């Protein structure tokens, strides 16, 4: 469902939310260069476009000069003026940026400087602000929202200020609240969101996937399909506490998405080692898959200066 209406139910700002922090304009300008390089291949000239011809929009009609492509001669104008005229098109250079954003409950987690949701918000804002430059437009496919049909909420691509405002409004809604297993079924998964993005985005552009890639399955195939048409960047958001379990004695932990309650004795070094190994393996699988698909992988952690890290990784 493509609507401009932000979801009013199903989202709630997390308690410890503090936002992504300041995003200096100078830094954005520097990032812009890197992003332009990143998407250069997807723009006209480097690859077969979805439409016909070099462009679709008429820029002007002018008299034929030797050297012009005869296929560009405009028959109607030539007949009327009795001299040969050619059509000159505006080249297709407006970029559509699709942001596939994870708003599931597991994003409201952070033990260092910020929440994972804050990082995702910051990355979204950076890509949205760069997307609306040069007459570009920004669309968002947010997933993991319990109240929405299919768990997915779509902001259609809009340019300039209205596009940014819509993104900001969505981000202000927060993330999905903690869920219990079997309550209204599974909210939309990453794979669903990627498939939906593939359906919506006809013209080549930039697709940014921002997620923690946690408890997600079968996302490789739809992501590969997107990769064939678009430039794709994957931003993986993580927290150091998820990678290693601290030795804090007996623990009861609950999965924010499924409500699954797990009791463990974290003083057992064997358990901590096994947990760290499994987590390492999981992240390794994500990185390997992204590398296999040829997708730029940007891991961001809550204990880092995420903006610097994003800038360093993107170029």
């Amino acid at each position, binding site marked *: 469902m493509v609507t401009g209406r932000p979801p009013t139910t199903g989202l709630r700002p997390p308690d410890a939310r503090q936002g992504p922090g300041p995003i200096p304009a100078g830094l954005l300008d520097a990032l812009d260069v890197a992003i332009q390089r990143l998407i250069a291949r997807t723009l006209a000239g480097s690859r077969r476009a979805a439409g016909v011809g070099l462009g679709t929009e008429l820029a002007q009609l002018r008299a034929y000069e030797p050297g012009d492509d005869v296929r560009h001669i405009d028959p109607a104008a030539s007949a009327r003026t009795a001299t040969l005229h050619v059509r000159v098109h505006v080249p297709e250079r407006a970029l559509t940026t699709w942001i596939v954003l994870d708003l599931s409950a597991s994003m409201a987690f952070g033990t260092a400087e910020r929440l994972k949701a804050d990082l995702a918000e910051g990355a979204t804002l950076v890509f949205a602000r760069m997307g609306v430059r040069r007459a570009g437009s920004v669309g968002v496919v947010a997933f993991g929202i319990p109240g929405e049909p299919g768990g997915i909420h779509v902001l259609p691509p809009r340019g300039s200020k209205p596009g940014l405002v819509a993104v900001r409004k969505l981000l202000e809604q927060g993330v999905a609240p903690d869920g219990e297993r079997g309550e209204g079924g599974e909210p939309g998964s990453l794979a669903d969101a990627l498939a939906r993005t593939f359906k919506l985005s006809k013209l080549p552009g930039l697709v940014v996937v921002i997620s923690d890639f946690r408890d997600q399955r079968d996302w490789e195939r739809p992501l590969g399909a997107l990769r064939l048409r678009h430039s794709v960047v994957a931003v993986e958001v993580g*927290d150091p506490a998820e990678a290693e379990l*601290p030795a804090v004695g007996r623990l009861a932990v609950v999965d924010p998405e499924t409500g699954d*309650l797990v009791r463990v004795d974290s003083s057992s070094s064997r358990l901590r080692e096994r947990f760290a190994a499994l987590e390492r393996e999981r992240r390794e699988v994500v990185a390997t898959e992204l590398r296999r698909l040829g997708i730029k992988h940007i891991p961001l952690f809550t204990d880092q200066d995420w903006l610097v890290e994003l800038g360093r990784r993107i170029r």
Partner: protein
Amino acid sequence: MSVADPLWLLALALLPLALIAQRLSHRRTRTYAVRFPAAATLRQALAEGADRRLRRHLAVGALLAALACLAVALAAPRVTHRVPIRAASLMLVLDHSGSMDSNDVSPTRLQAAMRAANTFIDQLPASARVGVVAFSTAPDTVQQPTTDHRAARTAIDSQQANGGTATGPALLLSLQLLHGAEKHHPPAAIVLLSDGAANLGISPVTVAQEARREHIPIYTVALGTPGGVLNEGIFGPTVPVPPDPGLMQQIAQSSGGRAYDARTEQYLRSVYQTLGRSLSTVARKRDISIYFLIAAGVLLIAATLGSVRTAARLP
């Protein structure tokens, strides 16, 4: 095993209650469980056996066991065990009839008997109980069996020879003194010092048979020679007083003892040693609550150490 205070055993019923309370408190876990997006990985690590399930229940198990031990200790458990008794009882039955005044044994039969008795007492260990029954026409001097050997000596040394020989009643009396009303009496024996020729009261052989039923052997020491005579004063007639070793032999055999004569009296000391070999035991009740208290203490320490190791130490 028995308990002195069975009411305390009711406290054992608190143990299942404690278990139920612990189960119920598990239900509240969700209220303090920590949100943790990697809970699924943690569950996987648990499923792979990275946690020692046994150790998780160790502290609770030890605590419950300590409570159980405490409850049992309060109930004051006792064990019945058989304690060997070293204190055997001996009864010296001394004949001081008129015939004992004969001097066929140097200096007289009575003196020899008294010496033999005193020698016998000398050889007894201090823990042995010694009693004396002296008789002539009837049992006249009675000293209850006691560990005070001097009392027995006094009773022996005060005897004068006169009167008839009532061996049967004297043996019966000493038998009654030895076993009293108890069914399981400590080991006991009777030493009869006499010149035989019982001529008054119940037949000593009958008494000897009863003594066998009571497991009290009668050891006899026959004094005198066949040619023994008694001078009735300086001018009186000479009365022959032959001993009756056959009767003594019969008494000893019917009761399970042995017969000695004056020549073999030094072997009398073996009487006590023979008794020592057939030492019996008595049942004693002993309080063993201290062991339960120690066990409770050890378990309590184990439970404390176990829970300190795994107690939650959230920063």
